């Protein structure tokens, strides 16, 4: 039972990372810290995707000078590549939004930005 729980350790890490990211997005007021929470959640989803396609004792799915053994699933690694690039694009746009908001309002506190009107 303990060994079965220890075997599922990557999925426990995924849950802890996702909930830490969600807690950072809910409880923090600074805009940059909220964006860090979103980046944590994206890392958790990428880790979950890669951990789904693992085979016990597997090698990388590349045929150049490969050692013996079964290969891990390659489809989920392709999905993770796409997800990482989309995370980069989203983070770049949101950080530039934060810079323009600081230039206009003079503060990065989300409750102050919500209060001021013009």
């Amino acid at each position: 039972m303990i060994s079965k729980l220890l075997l599922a350790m990557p999925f426990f890490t995924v849950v802890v990372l996702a909930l830490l990211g969600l807690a950072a997005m809910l409880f923090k007021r600074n805009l940059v810290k909220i964006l860090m929470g979103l980046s944590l959640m994206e890392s958790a989803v990428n880790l979950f995707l890669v951990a789904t396609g693992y085979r016990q004792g597997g090698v990388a799915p590349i045929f150049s000078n490969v050692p013996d053994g079964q290969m891990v699933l390659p489809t989920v690694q392709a999905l993770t590549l796409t997800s990482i690039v989309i995370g980069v694009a989203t983070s770049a746009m949101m950080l530039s939004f934060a810079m323009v908001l600081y230039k206009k309002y003079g503060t990065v506190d989300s409750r102050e930005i919500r209060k001021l009107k013009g």
Partner: protein
Amino acid sequence: MRLALYSAILLVLFGGLMYIAADLPFGKPAVTDMDDYFIRHGQEQTGANNIVTSIVFDFRGFDTLGEATVLFTAVLGVGMMFRKLNAGEEYEND
């Protein structure tokens, strides 16, 4: 009040997700038919040694086209945010 409500939601989510994550099989994926086909026929149909690259650029190349467009659109959005204003005042939507 807000703090208590958010903490309660997070604790319920934590318990539920940990209970589900303990049952997930790690190391023995359930259905592997598509990936076995890719590993067996990837080299003769694409000619690439790297099966992941052959999936990203040949078997699912249309998704990669969409992803390159997403990166292009992100650069477009950042460039729009930091443009130099012509002769008017701050931002034209004031």
